[in-house]
């Protein structure tokens, strides 16, 4: 008789049990174990990426409109979850967290629901009166120097500003209020996203952004009348009081530069028919047409307006490259009409893009790099999650998605 395991059996009697004794002795899951989901609604930006990538359709949301936005209740049903953590990976804001808690035993379905409420507020358009008054007040002190702010928000240079309201119209956040009649320029600090669109849009360079040279405010009135007199004398036409342009048919060569440069698209110039038409409703009275006109055939505003100094000192060579510009711009527009990509990633429309950097700021994955100065728009293919947030926030619809 042979008992091969007797020795093993006898020695094992005195060994410790190999049992984990689980309910008696608590056991912890391994590091990086993916158990119960924790949702952080405060971090959620409601891009719905998690829902789109969820293979088990475990993530749902219900949104109900409220007075100032939306109330979104997002629910994770653990009973349909594969715990693949794709939602966590795709959530650029870390709103979804997988814990090591594996005790997911339920007698009711509700026990397996993880919910969170996201409040989405629609931006308030109207600026409170008290707040903008404060930053506006100290600005126009003669002899002082207007410096760009450190926080990335715009500063107005009152001596240059013509209150054309273009900046307010272009502001994607609706943070600027400009009154042409009252000559006020107010910034709503809370709404401002510091995108710099206003500075780019300003035809008078009257808005300073960080990195700009400080401007000395010495005698804001002095330079205005002197050069203004010159074009006034040359010009046969009388400027309009509302600051909108008037054409001088004698000087106009119908080169169409003014129409091309008009930020509002309010001008229609036909070279062949020799017509110059202004769309009164679209015109923002910014004075761009006046400053680009190589023949000084456009007069904007009455002559005492500070609009005059800009075109007056501009020497002839400065206009020469401007005249050449349309030839450069024109061929590139039809040459590369951007098409949406098949892989769900965004495409920039350079013709529309104002490089305001909002898309880069809002990108949950940090995949966009936009340089306002260099006018570059770069997409990091590896980081892009194709959520479409950039296209949604673009004030110019310059992103195809």
């Amino acid at each position, binding site marked *: 008789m042979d008992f091969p395991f007797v020795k093993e059996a006898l020695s094992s009697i005195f060994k410790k049990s*190999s*049992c*984990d*004794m*689980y*309910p008696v002795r608590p*056991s912890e*899951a391994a590091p990086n*174990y993916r*158990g119960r989901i924790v949702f952080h609604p405060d971090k959620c930006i409601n891009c719905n990426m998690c829902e789109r990538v969820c*293979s*088990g*359709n*475990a993530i749902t949301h219900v949104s109900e409109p409220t007075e100032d936005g939306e109330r979104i209740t997002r629910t994770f*049903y*653990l*009973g*349909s*979850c*594969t*715990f693949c953590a794709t939602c966590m990976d795709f959530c650029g804001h870390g709103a979804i967290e997988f814990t090591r808690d*594996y*005790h*997911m*035993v*339920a*007698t009711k*379905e509700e*026990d*397996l629901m993880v919910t969170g409420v996201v409040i989405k507020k629609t931006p308030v358009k109207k600026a409170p009166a008290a707040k903008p008054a404060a930053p506006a007040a100290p600005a126009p002190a003669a002899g002082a120097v207007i410096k760009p702010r450190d926080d990335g928000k715009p500063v107005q240079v009152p001596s240059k500003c013509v209150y054309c309201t273009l900046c307010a119209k272009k502001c994607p956040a609706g943070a600027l209020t400009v009154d042409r009649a009252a000559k006020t320029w107010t910034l709503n600090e809370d709404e401002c996203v510091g995108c710099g669109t206003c500075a780019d849009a300003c035809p008078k360079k009257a808005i300073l952004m960080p990195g700009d040279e400080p401007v000395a405010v010495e005698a804001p009135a002095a330079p205005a009348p002197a050069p203004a007199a010159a074009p006034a004398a040359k010009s046969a036409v009388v400027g309009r009081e509302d600051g909108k342009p008037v054409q001088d048919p004698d000087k106009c060569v119908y080169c169409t530069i003014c129409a091309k440069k008009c930020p509002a698209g309010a001008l229609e110039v036909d070279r062949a028919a020799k017509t110059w038409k202004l769309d009164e409703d679209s015109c923002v009275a910014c004075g761009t047409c006046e400053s680009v006109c190589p023949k000084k055939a456009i007069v904007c505003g009455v002559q005492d307006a500070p609009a005059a100094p800009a075109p007056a000192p501009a020497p002839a060579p400065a206009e020469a490259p401007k005249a050449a510009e349309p030839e450069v711009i024109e061929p590139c527009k039809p040459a590369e009409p951007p098409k949406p990509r098949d892989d769900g990633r965004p495409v920039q429309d350079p013709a529309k893009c104002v490089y305001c950097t909002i898309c880069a700021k809002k990108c949950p994955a940090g995949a966009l790099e936009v340089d306002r100065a260099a006018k570059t728009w770069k997409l990091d293919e590896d980081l892009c999650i194709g959520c479409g947030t950039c296209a949604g926030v673009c004030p110019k619809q310059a992103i195809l998605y």
Partner: protein
Amino acid sequence: MFKKLIEESTAKSPWLFHINAGSCNGCDIELVSVLTPRYDAERLGVKLSGTPRHADIVVVTGPVTVQSLPRVLRTIEQVPEPRCIVTMGSCPQSGNVFRGSYSIAGPLSKYVHVDVDVAGCAPKPEAVIDGLVKAIEILREKRRAMN
């Protein structure tokens, strides 16, 4: 007297019957590991039974496919009352990634009353033990209610 003896002994040893209703085998492996010496669910009196007629707890894994549905129901009917139905993993609870497929008849709760859900894909053996402990409690209450 014998009846009481039998009742007491069955209460302490809730036998287990496992139905695979189209599972990917992940949950099945975890369930088997629960019965191994390391997790040793047999401490709780649980024993894997070979026939539904001896079982008290039915553990269902898999999303309940159209093919398996009549067999699952027929098997569950053979389990004597009081019985406790435990779903293991996400599949029998919702269909999981197979939800909406032409071949899925689930979730199981559409057809029978499910007592305990153990979530996970697949659940950790510890979670299964948690579920079994819960099932044993429910079973005890059901038995008390019957008497």
